[in-house]
């Protein structure tokens, strides 16, 4: 009896030692094993993917209704879209549609469809099916107000079938981001029968697409099972191969604990580890030492940024203070301290994978002396021996409401303290967010947004489209807001590519120079794959495509 009880702690100690030994190995490892000729792809095998959990507040894998990245990833593999987007160039390329035309007024889009596509329930993809998808999108929007896909069809009037394989989509107001929208999962085309189900049922996976995999089962909080679609033969040209997918099946598990996801991959229990936040430098070392391959790509769209409240009476209503804040953030230190040595430094309002991205790294350079001068000029002075600046007896405090304190928040707090700004982190309940925004009860609020089109920022700061009017109206003074809107309009509606590039370049400079956004870090999607996994590919939205993946023996 006695020995048994004594052995218990002994096992624990042995375990702790093993742990130490493991991390020791990891520290001395020298990078990933070489990728390269792994032979010809072979069909067969099953892939086990471990994701960050699905959305606890809204369990949904219906393409039109969900924003959650982990859900959109899966949808990308079971439902095809009219077009696809090149991750390298941002160019829109044919997929279910072979070609399209856009009218000069940007109000009419006409798509020619492939004639050899079927949904996995056997129904052919034709113009009527596409029309049904758009009609149903509007019905869903009416039944479920605020359904996320509404962003993609803003201004949509009608969709009509011109003939069996030609669809015309008519807009009441211009929406040039629509073409990019047709390449996203949110406007994926589903079989007409899918729309006989209620929006709630579709959320739980009762829908049918034309993709290379079939969604067999979705259990919220637990996982998703996919199996290969037989006879699939309409992959977009962006893939490495044609025809059916290689894998027989894909099993997706939701794992909340980062260390379990990493441990399962290194111990061979899973094939792909897909975190929400970048792997820590320690986990990266552990993964590479076990032979796993690391992949990373910035998520296109709005970088993780702070957006100001410039309403009258707020400290950030003063442009000098905003410029000072821009200079007081040390983004390089932030990236290396929080995420590791080779982590990219944010260079603008958008992440670098966003089409039309233009780097503003000079304007975003760390300059504490410059910041101090600007604050002095604005009348916020530092009394002898004081930590924070004051003006007319008031302390220079910038309030950021947060739901949970992260190391990044604290680092930022420390950086701003260096120039005499009291960066107050006010913890709030997620349920209070709406009232904080409508009450203007903040100086800065952080947000981000994933979509591979610069117009995505309109959803945050352009009050004609914004998901919150109050938030958008607080972000810039009326004059700047008008400038921003006209630059967005030019970027979106100009036919000439060069003029668009120019408009977006000026827009991105304005956002940073005027302090409409304060970029903090680039959002990078990481993934780790087991040594047997070949053909890994990021989509344009930095999602995972299972289509080209195949597994080597062992």
């Amino acid at each position, binding site marked *: 009896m006695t020995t048994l009880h004594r052995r218990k702690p002994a096992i624990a100690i042995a375990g702790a030692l*093993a*742990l130490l030994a493991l991390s020791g190995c990891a520290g001395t490892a020298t990078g990933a094993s070489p990728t390269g000729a792994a032979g010809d792809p072979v069909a067969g095998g099953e892939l086990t993917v471990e994701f960050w959990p699905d959305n606890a507040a*809204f369990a949904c894998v219906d393409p039109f209704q969900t924003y959650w990245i982990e859900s959109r990833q899966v949808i990308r593999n079971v439902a095809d879209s009219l077009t696809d987007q090149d991750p390298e160039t941002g160019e829109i390329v044919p997929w279910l549609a072979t070609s399209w035309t856009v009218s000069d007024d940007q109000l009419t889009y006409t798509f020619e469809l492939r004639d050899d596509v079927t949904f996995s329930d056997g129904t052919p993809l034709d113009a009527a099916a596409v029309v049904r998808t758009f009609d149903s999108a509007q019905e869903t929007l009416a039944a479920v107000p605020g359904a996320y896909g*509404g962003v993609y069809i803003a201004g949509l009037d009608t969709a009509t079938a011109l003939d069996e394989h030609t669809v015309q989509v008519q807009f009441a107001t211009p929406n040039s981001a629509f073409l990019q929208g047709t390449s996203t999962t949110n406007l994926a085309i589903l079989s007409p029968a899918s729309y006989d189900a209620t929006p709630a049922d579709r959320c739980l996976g009762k829908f049918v697409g034309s993709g290379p995999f079939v969604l067999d089962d979705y259990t*919220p909080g637990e996982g998703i099972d996919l199996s290969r679609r037989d006879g699939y033969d309409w992959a977009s040209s962006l893939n490495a191969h044609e025809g059916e997918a290689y894998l027989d099946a894909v099993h997706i598990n939701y794992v909340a604990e980062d260390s379990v996801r990493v441990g399962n991959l290194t111990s061979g229990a899973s094939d792909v580890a897909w975190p929400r936040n970048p792997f820590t430098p320690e986990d990266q070392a552990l993964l590479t030492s076990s032979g796993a391959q690391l992949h990373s790509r910035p998520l296109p769209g709005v970088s993780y940024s702070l957006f100001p409240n410039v309403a009258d009476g707020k400290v950030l209503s003063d442009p000098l203070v905003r410029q000072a804040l821009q200079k007081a953030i040390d983004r390089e230190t932030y990236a290396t301290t929080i995420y590791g040595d080779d982590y990219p430094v944010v260079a603008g309002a958008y992440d670098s994978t966003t089409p039309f991205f233009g780097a503003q790294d000079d304007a975003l350079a760390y300059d504490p002396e410059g910041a101090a001068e600007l604050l002095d000029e604005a009348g916020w002075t530092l009394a002898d021996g004081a930590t924070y600046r004051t003006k007319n007896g008031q302390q220079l405090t910038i309030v950021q409401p947060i739901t949970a304190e992260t190391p990044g928040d604290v680092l930022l707090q420390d950086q701003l303290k260096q120039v005499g700004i009291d960066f107050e982190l006010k913890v709030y309940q997620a349920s209070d967010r709406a009232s904080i925004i409508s009450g203007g009860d903040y100086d800065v609020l952080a947000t981000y947004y994933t979509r591979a089109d610069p117009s995505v920022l309109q959803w945050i700061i352009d009050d004609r489209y914004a998901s919150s009017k109050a938030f958008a109206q607080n972000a810039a003074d009326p004059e700047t807001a008008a400038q921003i809107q006209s630059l967005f309009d030019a970027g979106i509606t100009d036919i000439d590519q060069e003029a668009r590039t120019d408009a977006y370049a000026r827009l991105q400079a304005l956002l940073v120079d005027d302090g409409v956004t304060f970029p903090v870090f680039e959002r990078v999607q990481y993934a780790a794959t087991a040594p047997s996994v070949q053909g890994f590919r990021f989509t344009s939205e930095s999602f995972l495509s299972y289509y080209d993946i195949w597994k080597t023996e062992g």
Partner: protein
Amino acid sequence: MAWYVLRRVGQAAVVLWAAYTATFVILHVLPSDPVALQLAANNVEIDSLTPEQREVAEARLGLDRPVWQQYLGMLAGVLRGDFGTSYAKQVPVAQLLGERLPATATLSGVAVLIALVAGVGLALLAVRVPRGPLAALLRRLPAVGVSVPNFWIGLLLIQVFAFTLGWLPAMGSIGPQSYVLPAITMAVPTSAVLAQVLIRSLDDTLGEPYIATARAKGLSRGAVQLRHAFRNAALPTLTILGLLVGATVTGSIVVETVFSRQGLGRLAQESVLAQDVPVVQAIVVLAASAFVLVNLVVDLLYPLLDPRIARTPRVSRA
């Protein structure tokens, strides 16, 4: 006896109703809006909806009626066994509970069993070992078990038995082997508390004069401990066991998250965060029922351990 049972059942009903009502009041006093939370989870703010759209969204969740009507409607539903539909998961709450309850109930059951065996075993051992360094270690072990965080124990077990040795799965709810690590994780603090209480009361009882008498009669040390001291010391332990069964439900929140298991604990945590009122209400009623039931069983077990408890009413009636 019939009157006793009836009164107990009546008390249980009042407790359940009070728990249900308190949860409802708390969830409605909180400054929150399930519609806004659902939209925010999709990166859409509630103020982007027109008043008409807002009404539609609220009507979908049954939030368009006055609060008292919502309360009575939900209460009437519960009495019929209908717990409504989850806001977040969009399926009937009864179905959700049916899917999640067995996993957590089994896990908690196994954990309580392990805790009982380990806790009682440790206590008996600690009291039996002669004073010295080993006794001191055994007596301090429960304190360690109580103070080490649950998630840490879980992660350590996963590191050792799943990742390093590869004996047991680190996650999931498939097969008996998937219960081992989570059940042990849940059992550690419970067994530690049990052992603490039992050691203390064993110490107390062993100092009683009747123990000396028993020893004087020539009974062996072990016989005295088991037949006399343990039986008396078991009462406070049994009382605490009732509370600990409730604690395993709380423990399941952490354990189910660490081990990626689908159970009531995870569901409760997610539903509270998402302000999924129907689900939270149902779980509260369920947890309260379990609590009431366990305490009833404990109450009925008392007379078996201490006949004086059963005899007392008879004496007073005479």
